[in-house]
């Protein structure tokens, strides 16, 4: 054995470039798989982190409704009602203008003494805070403090509700407050600003601590990581108590535990990312297979010489396994080392705040195990098939059933999409990805061979007729493409890589499209939340406002427990092009997006029961919209659901800070919250953006791996064919003609691979899209729209 290992190390030393390239490819394959697998864990961490940051330990929120008779909502009322059953903290969102240029930031006013009951606040630095200074104290996020050069004990001047006030920085937090807010004030200070314009409020003094949202943690639960049925019952009981209490009439009571994680888009995109991860891992496996197979083919010549010299097959096979193990060892170590900084860079680039930033040991074991298994499987396949390799591999071997197997499997998984109920179609994602990849793997080489042979026959006939090949380089390139296994493998690898990249690109584009069109479903640039009729009148008459619409927007539950966006508006103008019903429905009538109609199994004329704002309403489907947003549009006022926000478009001549200042002043007595639409959507769809970032990151990594793997494959295959190619030179082919021939070979194999990739992607996409129906993805966001969006 010593002799064999001596041979192995000498052959590595003699040509070090090949092992180095192989290690590089294995490194990239491990890094890609590990990065992709870590992303999934990071996304889950980010989702649950965002949930914790947004809702803290709260199980229930109570928010102001447009139709509430009183705008005053107090945490104390909830505490009085619930007693020892719950902890309560109240908050109010507000725009804050600061700086000489009138920059605006959104802040949150809370009671400093109670916010810590629900939210786990931490500070990187903090100063002193006494009862006498609390009304003038402000907490800042580290980003905001750094951007504005503020430190603890610095003075911070801002305009709140049109009044200028100087605050002292009392603490700096590494994270924004309640997920999104850079500034946190004590609401006793807010009360004093509001009291300046109101005798009633000024008489209430310190006891007046208004809130627009109450966060309620139900106490006495089991304490298990997931809620038990008894826990959920307790939470529902508290929610019911709040909804029924006269103090909270006209408020919206929502159970928020797991709200972020259970959103239907989240679920859909989570699956999309899972497919992308599966595809990335498959790609890494295919790349590892391809590279190690080339190595095995190359070693087989040497093995034959050893065998003829008396070596036993088992010794040579052990040598092959040892060599692969050696490369896998280095490749895995480097891959693990590489994935860590890449992942940290991704987390920094896409502002992952809560996700773990290091790969988990289980992911490392999984991905290294995958690549190692592929490596050893490749050698085993080679060892088992080695006797056959002595003869040229011909197409058409194997039984018809075996050859048709990948096609049948792909057809079965495609058929299952339509055979399963819509709600279960997501189960087809992984089988679809696997079987289509298998089909591309199995059929690309024989198809390429047949096409090239047919082309060869045509060219030969033409050559014979015209007595001379017009382009000998092309003529021989076609012949080689038909005969050289390496070129068929290149076509196969290109097809696999192209298929994975194109499929992932389509999925990501489709998801980007959904997100984009969702965000642009309304024609507005700002929103006023918790808006009353008085708010509407105030906003409508604001100089800085061009147009405004009253809107009802709430998440409802269908009977099947699926979340569904319920919308109402006082005119179709409120909706943008992608979500515009023929008319705003009146009475019991409702317009529903086609995806949701499909999922709920309703048609025009059917009745659909929805639980919205604590009420159950039955709507009659009057229109099915081919929209770009999952939603049902109802006549909310008919059901006693008041408009809860106003969508606003800024006048062209007004700047944003001026408009925010005017709006906050005009709505201050109504305790309404003004938000930019982008922040509004970020609050609701922020997690989805992280999913998309993950999809894009996987795509980028996969694309990089694909390019490197293709180049390496081509390089290796030409190195192996060096001798055969030199014979063309000996036969009189000029160097230029030989280069052209190689270029044609590359072009033909890459073009064919890409063609197969595109065809396979085009064949797969309708089934994936049909599977996405499980999440109600809308028809309106077709791939054509997404391409148009990206091009624009």
């Amino acid at each position, binding site marked *: 054995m010593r002799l064999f290992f001596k041979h192995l190390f000498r052959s590595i030393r003699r040509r070090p470039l090949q092992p180095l390239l192989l290690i590089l490819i294995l490194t990239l394959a491990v890094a890609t798989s590990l990065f992709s697998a870590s992303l999934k864990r990071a996304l889950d961490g980010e989702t649950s982190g965002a949930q914790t940051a947004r809702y803290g330990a709260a199980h229930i929120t109570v928010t102001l409704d447009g139709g509430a008779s009183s705008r005053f909502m107090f945490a104390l009322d909830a505490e009085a009602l619930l007693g020892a059953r719950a902890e309560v903290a109240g908050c109010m969102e507000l725009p804050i203008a600061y700086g000489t240029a009138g920059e605006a930031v959104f802040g949150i006013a809370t009671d400093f003494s109670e916010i810590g009951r629900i939210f786990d606040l931490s500070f990187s630095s903090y100063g002193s805070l006494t009862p006498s200074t609390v009304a003038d104290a402000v907490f800042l996020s580290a980003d905001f403090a750094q951007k504005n050069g503020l430190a603890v004990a610095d003075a911070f001047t801002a305009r709140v509700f049109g009044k200028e006030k100087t605050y002292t920085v009392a603490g700096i937090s590494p994270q924004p407050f309640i997920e999104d807010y850079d500034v946190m004030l004590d609401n006793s200070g807010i009360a004093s600003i509001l009291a300046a314009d109101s005798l009633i409020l000024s008489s209430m003094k310190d006891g007046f601590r208004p809130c627009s949202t109450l966060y309620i943690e139900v106490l006495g639960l089991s304490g298990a990581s997931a809620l038990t049925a008894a826990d959920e019952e307790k939470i529902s009981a508290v929610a019911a108590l709040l909804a029924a209490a006269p103090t909270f009439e006209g408020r919206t009571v929502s159970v928020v535990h797991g709200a972020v994680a259970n959103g239907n888009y989240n679920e859909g995109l989570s699956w999309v990312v899972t497919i992308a991860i599966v595809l990335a891992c498959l790609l890494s496996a295919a790349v590892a297979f391809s590279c190690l197979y080339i190595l095995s083919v190359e070693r087989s010549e040497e093995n034959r010489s050893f065998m003829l010299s008396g070596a036993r097959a088992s010794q040579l096979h052990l040598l092959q396994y040892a060599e692969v193990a050696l490369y896998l060892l280095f490749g895995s170590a480097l891959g693990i080392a590489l994935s860590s900084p890449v992942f940290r860079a991704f987390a920094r680039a896409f502002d992952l705040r809560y996700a773990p930033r290091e790969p988990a040991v289980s992911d490392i074991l999984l991905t290294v195990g995958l690549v190692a298994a592929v490596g050893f499987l490749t050698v085993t396949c080679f060892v088992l098939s080695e006797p056959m390799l002595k003869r*040229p591999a011909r197409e058409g071997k194997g039984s018809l059933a075996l050859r048709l197997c990948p096609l049948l499997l792909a057809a079965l998984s495609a058929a299952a999409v339509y055979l399963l109920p819509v709600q279960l179609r997501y189960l087809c994602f992984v089988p679809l990805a696997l079987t289509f990849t298998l089909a591309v793997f199995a059929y690309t080489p024989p198809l390429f061979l047949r096409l090239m042979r047919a082309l060869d026959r045509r060219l030969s006939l033409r*050559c*014979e007729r015209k*007595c*001379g*090949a017009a382009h*000998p380089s092309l*003529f*021989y390139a076609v*012949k*080689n493409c038909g*005969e*050289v296994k390496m070129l068929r493998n290149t076509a196969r690898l290109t097809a696999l890589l192209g298929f994975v990249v194109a499929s992932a690109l389509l999925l990501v584009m489709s998801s980007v499209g959904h997100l984009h069109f969702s965000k642009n479903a309304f024609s507005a640039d700002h929103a006023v939340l918790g808006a009353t009729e008085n708010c509407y009148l105030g906003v409508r008459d604001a100089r800085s406002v061009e147009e405004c619409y009253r809107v009802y927007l709430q998440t409802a539950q269908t009977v099947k427990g699926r979340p569904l966006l319920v919308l109402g508006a006082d005119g179709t103008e409120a909706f943008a092009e992608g979500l515009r019903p023929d008319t705003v429905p009146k009475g019991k009538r409702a317009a529903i997006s086609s995806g949701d109609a499909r999922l709920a199994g309703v048609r025009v004329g059917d009745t659909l029961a929805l639980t919205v704002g604590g009420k159950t309403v039955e709507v009659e489907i009057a229109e099915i919209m081919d929209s770009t947003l999952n939603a049902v549009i109802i006549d909310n006022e008919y059901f006693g659901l008041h408009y809860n926000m106003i969508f606003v478009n800024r006048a062209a001549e007004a700047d944003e800070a001026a408009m925010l200042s005017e709006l906050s002043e005009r709505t201050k007595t109504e305790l309404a919250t003004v938000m930019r639409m982008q922040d509004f959507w970020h609050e609701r769809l922020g997690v989805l953006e992280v999913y998309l970032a993950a999809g894009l990151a996987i795509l980028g990594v996969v694309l990089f791996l694909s390019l490197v793997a293709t180049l390496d494959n081509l390089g290796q295959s030409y190195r192996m064919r060096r001798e*055969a190619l030199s*014979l*063309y*030179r*000996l*036969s*009189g*082919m*000029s*160097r*230029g*003609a030989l280069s052209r021939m190689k270029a044609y070979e590359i072009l033909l194999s890459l073009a064919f691979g890409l063609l197969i990739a595109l065809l396979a992607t085009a064949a797969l996409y309708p089934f994936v899209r049909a599977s996405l129906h499980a999440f109600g993805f809308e028809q309106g966001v077709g791939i054509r729209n997404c391409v148009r969006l990206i091009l624009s």
Partner: protein
Amino acid sequence: MIKAERIEKSYNGERVLKSVSLSIRDGEFVSVMGESGSGKSTLLQLLGGFLSPDAGRVLWDGQDVASFSERALAALRCERMGFVFQSYQLIPTLNVKDNLLLPTVLGGRLSEETKKYVEMLCEELEITPLMKKLPETLSGGQSQRVAIIRALAYRPSTVILDEPTGALDSRMEGKVMALLSRINKRDKTTVIAVTHSERVAAFADRIVRISDGEILREENEKANGAKGG
């Protein structure tokens, strides 16, 4: 005319050819003989322009092969010279027919006449049934015959053969040598063949004997034959 002027060649510091000079007239049949490792094949490859001499020069019709451009060398290989390698050097991915026609196609001189000529050569050397086969499925003798036909296919003015009959049985050896002799006489094709076989060498006009990288002597075979006759 092909002329080697004081050519020298070394591999890894070991001199394989030592100041060899040789002139071959157009239409001449020359056999190069010598022991294994004496430098015969190296001499042939230098004459064919496949190797460059370390010293001296090889002239084809008065032109130094070392001064040939890439294009001129390619033209030499697929228009003027046919070369049969000791290891045949058939292209593994092309079938026998494609291998035979390769230099003709590359030279842009594929014609009905050429095809008929190739078919005739194939008939003569019993290759016709093998036209669709790939080189790796051929025996040594079959490969050697294919390599010979490929070298003759485009009727080059010079054919250089390295051990052209080493893998052939005596019947086929006779056929090949008859063919080479015929094209030499009828078409005035220059034939230069390395061989170990005295029987093969006997077809030549002149035999060049090499030993240890030097020309030992040149024998005029026809004159010897005439004397002997």
